[in-house]
């Protein structure tokens, strides 16, 4: 199976290790993984800011880069959701390529969804000696119905116990540029999420989207919680991140 890894711009810039974790997972599922080196962004910032033309130009670029792959996988519900659910809307402006875009959408997956439903991954190498709670990111949950998939995979992680927080489906307040335009409101929403995570009493909050991850981690540290780990599901599935917990976050 030839799979294109859409790394996403935030993983590329902020957390390369998550990109490598995704790569490793796909390879362990028996995929031949290609990583086009010209890839940048799926176009979501433009699309959500009203700049359809830029978003469409980037959508064309993504399709050209990955079209030869049998599947396209992103370690992000938000970017995969942009492609799967919003590219068709964007290509209403370019009807000549609409069918092509639709075909592309159909083979694009969020990582955990792909691992469970397409690659049917049986075992994961990750180990975690502790408890974790899963935050359902909005785009993954409501655009792609990512809910059971990450939990199913986390259940395979040796030593990991999953605890549900009070409202795992409640937005963390990130919202892309919303987090900067309305920083105080965004932080207030993040605070509520952090309080729910704290109340769950888990060693780590695990999630599937970089935006939410940076938002929650940023708020968590600001409110003085240096202990709770904020982890992407891909890294938990691949590595043993327990030691990093015990070392503590400075």
């Amino acid at each position, binding site marked *: 199976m030839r799979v294109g890894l859409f*790394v996403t*711009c935030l*993983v*590329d*810039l*902020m*957390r*390369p290790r998550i*990109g*490598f974790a995704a790569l490793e997972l796909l390879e362990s599922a028996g995929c031949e993984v290609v*990583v086009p*080196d*010209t*890839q*940048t*962004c799926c*176009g979501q*910032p*433009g699309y*959500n*800011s*009203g*700049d*359809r033309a*830029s978003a469409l*130009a*980037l959508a064309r*670029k993504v399709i050209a880069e990955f079209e030869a792959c049998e599947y396209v996988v992103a370690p992000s519900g938000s970017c995969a959701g942009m492609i799967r659910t919003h590219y068709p*809307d964007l290509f209403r402006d370019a009807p000549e390529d609409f069918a092509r875009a639709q075909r592309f959408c159909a083979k694009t997956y969020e990582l955990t969804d792909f691992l469970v439903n397409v690659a049917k991954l049986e075992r994961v190498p990750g180990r975690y000696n502790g408890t974790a709670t899963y935050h359902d990111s*909005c785009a993954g949950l*409501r655009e792609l119905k990512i809910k059971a998939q990450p939990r199913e995979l986390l259940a395979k992680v040796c030593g990991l116990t999953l605890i549900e927080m009070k409202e795992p489906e*409640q*937005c963390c*307040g*990130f*919202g*892309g540029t*919303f*987090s*900067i*335009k*309305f*920083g*105080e*409101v*965004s*932080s*207030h*929403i*993040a*605070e*509520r999420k952090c309080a729910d995570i704290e109340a769950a009493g888990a060693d780590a909050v695990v999630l599937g989207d970089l935006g939410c991850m*940076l938002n929650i*981690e*940023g*708020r968590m*540290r*600001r409110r003085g919680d240096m202990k709770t780990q904020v982890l992407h599901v891909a890294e938990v599935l691949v590595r043993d991140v327990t030691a990093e917990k015990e070392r503590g*976050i*400075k």
Partner: protein
Amino acid sequence: MQLTSNRFKQTARAKLADTDLQAALNKLQTNFVKGRADRVAELDNFEAIRDAATAIRDRALAHLDVYLAEFERNATAQGTVVHWAETTVDVNRIVCELAARYGVRKAVKSKSMVSEECALNDALEAAGIEVVETDLGEYILQLAKEPPSHIVAPVVHKTREQVSDLFEARHHRPRTTVIADLTREAREVLRPHFLSAQMGITGANFVVAETGSTLIVTNEGNGRMVTSLPRVHVAITGIEKVVPTLEDVTTLLRLLPRHGTAQTTTNYVSVTTGPRRADDSEGPEHFHVILVDAGRSRLLGGDMEAMLRCIRCGACMNHCPVYQSIGGHAYGWVYPGPMGSVLTPTYAGLENALDLPHASTLCNQCGVVCPVKIPLPDLLRKLREKQFARGLRPWSERAGLAIWGWTARHPRVYALLSAVGARLLNWLGGTDKRIRDLPGGKGWTVGRDIPAPEGKTFRALYAARRAENVRK
């Protein structure tokens, strides 16, 4: 109502710091969010009802002219007088003319959000007519001289103690904080007004084409008195509220109370068909219905038409993380929350509510809970597109988007800039890998750290790994 939507950011900031408001908003989540979920779970065919309700609203909108004409015909046949108001100014003029014609000195009102759009109370008072709001929440707000902050629970932003203080000051009675006593006190004050008013003003949740009726759902019973005691009843509602048949209404009523107040049904469902007949024991002598456009017809046939399906349940705001954080006043006009962020710029002008379409994380919880499936995040995004196309965004944002758009299309430049960015931010993060303050990044760092990047981009590390493998 005065439009203050362009002060959204400042007001929102103040609301975040308002501890009484925050306590009140917490209760909203328990009562309305959990309550709605429970009421919906009771329906084994909820999604089928939701589809049917959506189809009913779409059918009404697709043939709006036909159903409105049918309503007018049937209402007129029952003795109702139907008025058409193109603008909110027309509404106020019509009501004031009716008041003058019937010698009205006092009007009692049941809750009507369309009358808030019109600032009707101000117009009536300017014409020398006393106006008394009789919905408990609206009555409290009238005493406090405040606008509503929620379309179903208008006084949700106030705590019980604040209401006690207000009643004590305005009613000159001993202070009580017992809710039942506060309610009784309001009833005692309001009763003489019901009996002495010459005009009753209501909204209408729906108007029914086949019967020429107007319909309101209420819980307090004030609606019944407003529609039956005064000599004149005026119902004011938007043209989009028409529904073909009474049977259609019953479908919509299975969803409206469950989504609005977490009830299976409201205490009262009042259907008014014409004024009092010869053999009726009660009812007004004159019944007037004002059908209001005020921007609605502009949405027909366009990309925002789905918004006209709205049945004003308030579920979108109850479930919105932004509304839950700041309440309704920051939105700056009649309608708050996601539906308000669509309606305000649409009815009051794109340039008069620049922040609202952006004041959403697009989490789509609103779209998921909407009983008539309005794709609110999509509509907010369309408004963002309209703002962008009209050049209404600040230059800094437009420049930022242009730079981002160009760079993301030029992979080499992008790779270079992101490598520099990753390095720089990593360095700024210092030993504990947290950036607490970033020049130009205050929006983020005002309430959060920036977790520092690892230092190298994925792209660079992956290229290095590939080169290594080749050497091996």
